[in-house]
């Protein structure tokens, strides 16, 4: 006796084994399969024939896997165009930087001591930098996923970082406890980011139609 639920579960397992990911795109494919089976049964086919025909129509799992692999969903999503690739590399760099800052601010005994000694002024600054790093972590994650909001967030943060570091570099009083050399590198990195992110966007619109 044919069991539609069991056969669908088997089909799902085969797809998973072939490397089609869940929930997306497997859920989408399964919904498609079920809808097609339902429609074919309404047209007069029995359950078994409808299932067979729908599975055939949806396509062989190896070919499907190959098509999905072109999207690069397998291990790490890597963009199709040069522009998205640049953005993703920048995303990874900013993610590393902001996570590092976040851990540093959140766990730094110096930060804790400063808050205790100068509660008003330094508390504000530490909270500000922590929030900035946290926003940076979220923004760079979005940038890696190629979301447009990620580009905007990182651009704003890069501008802020550039201004802060350039200010520190010029005044050079080392009030944050780091050397000018370090501020030079950071402001250079921020400036490059602002420049590359903008030029990526221009390339993106040209590549919209290949």
């Amino acid at each position, binding site marked *: 006796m044919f069991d539609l639920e069991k056969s669908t579960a088997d089909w799902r397992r085969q797809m998973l084994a072939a490397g089609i990911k869940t929930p*997306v*795109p497997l*859920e*989408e*494919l399964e*919904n*498609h399969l*079920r*809808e*097609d089976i339902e429609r074919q049964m309404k047209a007069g086919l029995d359950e078994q024939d409808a299932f067979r025909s729908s599975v055939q*129509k*949806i*396509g062989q799992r190896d*070919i*499907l896997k190959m*098509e*999905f692999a*072109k*999207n690069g*969903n397998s291990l790490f*999503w890597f*963009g*199709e*165009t040069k522009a*998205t690739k640049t953005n993703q590399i920048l995303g990874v760099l900013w993610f590393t930087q902001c996570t590092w800052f976040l851990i540093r601010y959140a766990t730094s005994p110096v930060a804790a001591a400063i808050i205790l000694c100068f509660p008003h002024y330094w508390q504000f600054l530490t909270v500000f930098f922590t929030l900035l790093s946290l926003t940076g972590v979220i923004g760079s994650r979005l940038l890696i996923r*190629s979301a*447009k909001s990620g580009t905007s967030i990182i651009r704003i943060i890069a501008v802020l970082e550039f201004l802060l570091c350039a200010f520190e570099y010029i005044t050079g009083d080392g009030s944050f406890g780091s050397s000018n050399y370090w501020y030079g590198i950071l402001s250079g990195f921020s400036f490059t980011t602002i420049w590359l992110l903008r030029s990526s966007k221009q390339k*993106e*619109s040209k590549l*919209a*139609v290949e």
Partner: protein
Amino acid sequence: MIRKELVAASAEPLILSLLAKGESYGYAIIQEVKARSDGKLNWTDGMLYPVLHRMENRGLIKSRWAESDTGRKRKYYSLKKDGKTAMAKHHEQWSLVHSVLAGLKKEQYV
């Protein structure tokens, strides 16, 4: 049956133009293309999804999960601003190819 290269090349402009009428989901997109081409444009059903995901990654379309009247979960796709621009360019290019082809065909009968 239409050659597979042409089927592949026309997938993106067709999807964009269909979604320009309003949001839709995979199964409905396939059915509509089939109906409009009298069954001559026949996609392997599963192949539509990698194309849709690629277009989403490129920022041409966006998607959301919603429940249908029958309670089935569906992923609805809709056009984004870049998708509209891409569609206009596709129309322009396909019209050009069509007019060149039509002009040449006409000359053959003169």
